[in-house]
């Protein structure tokens, strides 16, 4: 069966796909969105959103445990693991339903099923997309199929004891011990969450530091904080083997630089070593779409073929907000209205472990490697009134400014509220606010954001509060 040709079919309804679909519809394009699972994709159902719900439970637990410090008597504090998981799932479900509502509101048809691009009849013919028994035609197809967790060779995910993030947020019971392979955002967030619940954690990371994509000082600060929280870390260690042994997982790690092997045991091993793009069932071959290490290759405007576009994780972006921004960009390109290209050097990234991490731009090491003349300033939370009052004094704000132009080169924050206050630095980066303008911007007192100005003043050697 065949329907009238649509303007756009979006494949995937994650933060890239659903945003692209809605923007297309807003611009008057007849749009449908194919989703084989829950609307909202990984982000809303199995990623950003449910994990933030879990981490909020962990935060409340931490606060309750510290209540006495704040003069509040709270007794009998303990986690209800099943209730925490249930709440997380309910929130994911609610947000996912919100996408369904938005689709109906914008008259976007949700086609349930797995989409496959059929070979095109000719250059001027619409694209044909098969979903189950149905074939839909569209002038444009936006591929937004995202990615899924991958494992390492020799480590088999079994869904019970050796799991990826998806299973890790719906375990039937709280593990007493958890080994985490990979100290990227996903790894440290789960480590942080389960540690707050009381689980014994060991993180194994091949690279020599936690959150290896962040500035080295951030890694160091997180390391100290995790040490304090009793999270064991084996950085610079390679996982030599991991095998299930009854209800346990036995692991052998060895220093990447060589040396004595470390044997570990855990109830559960979380494998968080990265993602692989979902491209296999799309039928890309017939369209000459090229892949780069599995990810779809596009031009600078997200095109991967005539009337074919790809956005988000499936092209290797790895951040929901980038996928969304690309979705808007592509929708506007298709509609032929003005589309402002993304500033890929001005993309913030947030990690919601405790303490939280947020960053934008270049690390100090990268800036130095590029021979940029820089001024670096730091502002520790322990000197900020608001942070002290809140009892959140771990971490700092670090800013890197261009020594000659005053442009923001990078910013690296760890500690309270950083995932929100990074917005100021995102704006500074994308709109070229220079150090001088930032310093002359009045920051409300007392707020966490004051630390950004404080760090900038420090970079210029005239911090008032340091």
């Amino acid at each position, binding site marked *: 069966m065949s329907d009238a040709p649509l303007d756009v079919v979006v494949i995937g309804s994650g933060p890239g796909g659903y945003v692209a679909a809605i923007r297309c519809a807003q*611009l008057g394009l007849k749009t449908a969105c194919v989703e084989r699972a829950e609307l909202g994709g990984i982000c809303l159902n199995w990623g950003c959103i449910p994990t933030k719900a879990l981490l909020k439970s962990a935060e409340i637990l931490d606060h309750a445990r510290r209540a006495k410090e704040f003069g509040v008597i709270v007794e009998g504090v303990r986690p209800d693991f099943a209730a925490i998981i249930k709440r997380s799932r309910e929130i994911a479900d609610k947000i996912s339903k919100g996408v369904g509502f938005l689709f109906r509101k914008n008259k976007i048809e949700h086609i349930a099923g797995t989409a496959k691009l059929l070979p095109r009849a000719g250059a001027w013919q619409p694209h044909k997309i098969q979903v189950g028994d149905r074939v839909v035609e569209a002038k444009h197809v936006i591929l937004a199929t995202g990615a899924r967790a991958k494992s390492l060779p020799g480590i088999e995910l079994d869904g019970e004891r050796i799991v990826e993030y998806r299973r890790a947020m719906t375990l039937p019971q709280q593990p007493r011990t958890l080994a985490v392979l990979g100290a990227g955002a996903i790894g440290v967030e789960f480590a942080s969450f389960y540690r707050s619940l009381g689980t014994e954690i060991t993180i194994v990371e091949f690279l020599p530091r936690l959150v290896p994509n962040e500035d080295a000082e951030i890694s160091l600060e997180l390391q100290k904080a995790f040490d304090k929280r009793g999270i064991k870390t084996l950085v610079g260690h390679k996982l030599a083997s991991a095998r299930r042994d009854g209800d346990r997982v036995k692991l052998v790690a060895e220093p990447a630089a060589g040396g004595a092997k470390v044997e570990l045991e855990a109830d559960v091993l979380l494998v968080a070593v990265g993602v692989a793009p979902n491209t296999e069932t799309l039928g890309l071959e017939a369209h000459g779409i090229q892949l780069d290490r599995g990810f779809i290759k596009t031009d600078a405007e997200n095109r991967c073929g005539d009337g074919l576009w790809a956005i988000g994780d499936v092209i290797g972006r790895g951040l929901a907000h980038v996928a969304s921004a690309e979705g808007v960009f592509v929708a506007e390109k298709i509609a032929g209205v*003005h589309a*402002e290209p993304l500033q890929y050097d001005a993309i913030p990234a947030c990690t919601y472990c405790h303490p939280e991490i947020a960053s934008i731009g270049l690390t100090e090491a990268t800036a130095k490697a590029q021979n940029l003349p820089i001024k670096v300033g730091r502002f520790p939370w322990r000197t900020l009134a608001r942070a002290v009052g809140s009892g959140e004094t771990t971490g700092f704000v670090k800013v890197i400014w261009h020594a000659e132009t*005053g*442009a923001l080169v990078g910013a690296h924050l760890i500690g309270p509220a950083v995932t929100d206050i990074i917005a100021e630095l995102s704006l500074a980066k994308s*709109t070229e*606010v*220079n150090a001088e*303008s930032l310093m002359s911007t009045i920051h409300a007192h007392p707020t966490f954001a004051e630390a950004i100005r404080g760090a900038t003043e420090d970079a210029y050697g005239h911090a008032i509060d340091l």
Partner: protein
Amino acid sequence: MAQIIGLPKLSPTMEEGVLVRWTKHEGDKVSPGDLIAEVETDKANMDFNIEDEGVLLKFLVKEGETVKLGAPVAIIGKAGEDVSALVQQAAQRASDSGPRTSAGPETSTSAPAAKAQPREATKPEMEQRAKPTTKPPAPASSATGPAERPQAADLGPQAHSGKLLASPLAKSLAIELGIDLRHVTGSGPGGRIVERDVRGAAEAGGGNGHAAPQPEARSPKPEAPAQTAIAVRRPQAADSDGDYTDVPASAMRKRIAQRLTEAKRDVPHFYLMRTFDAAPMLGFRERLNTLLGDRGKVSVNDLIVKAVALALRRVPEANAAWEPKAIIDGSEGAIRVFHRVHVGIAVAIEDGLVTPVVRDADQKGIGAIAAEVRDLADRAKHRQLKGHEITGSTFTVSNLGMFGIERFTAILNPPEAGILAIGTVVDAPVVVNNQLAIGKRMTVTMSCDHRVIDGALGARWLAAFVDLIEHPESLAL
């Protein structure tokens, strides 16, 4: 959603421009890169290529109007959108941008063309008139914002009372590099000047935005794809056998190529020729020059200009243009009859032509016309003519007599319906009182747009012209 399009910076130093000619009509659909208008800047006639896609819903500026940089010139959007609110907003913005030399934007929604009013100024375009022009690579439309993001439409750097929209970084960098931001075109959201614009300007040699390079400074790196084919062609590319050499065409030459092709192809030309007795005219000229003495000289051409102007008064139907888009009583197409007589005079300049205009030539004395034409021609050769001096003619005179050409036919200069080609004066055997004699004869050829001027009308006009020029005293009346 509809948005206002502002006048972009088309030359690095322009502060304002004369909207010489709309090349699209209201209601036309346009795509990014489409030429929508020609704008006379301080440097040259520039193409105004639109960066947005949509339907040109309304022109806010009449041809010939002077417009400040960033001031609203048109509204673009989807077909059928209500633009009344934007028209008001535009009027507000236009007054914010300072006074213009002529009327503000029309608030009526009827097409201006529908009113059979004299056009104050229309851009002539034809062989004799193609002006020094240049096409800036990708003219950044400073005041055109992203469609459907209404706030951005208001963010043009010059759109608001001259306040410059630039990032703090761009500003500090500009000070450091000594760049005048007023001459830099912004490429950021809403036309905001950002770091790369300032750096581009510095590379281009200071105060000279990379998005709007000086005509002279262009060519090595064209930015608009449409230009690539021309600009990447190496100058003077000779073929391997040496049988030919490709000489790069100037922007003016390309303009001439384009405009004349259009005119000759799209306008139904026909030609009427008259040979007349030039002796009275020559005698009259001699008497005038004797009278003038050191106070100047009157040329044959000056007399012809005056005769053409008066002939257009005698036969006003020939002082007209075909307006295909004008709508009267619901049907498209109208003859626009001009109420004033502005005579264009083709002047050859290096590598092309310009056509300065003698306004109200019918009202001016021969001496005044002579002085004015001499001044215009001198300045034309130095490319110093201002926009209003080369626009708005209603009829054109092209004279090749000084080159010994006896007769020729000229290509019309749309939208004008007539052009008169002047040949040289020849000694010819003539019959006077049944006797052969030697007389002075001149042949003129009128090219007519048949949509406006039929054969009989053209003949009537030529008769009026000949009557005037053969009785030159009437030119002084």
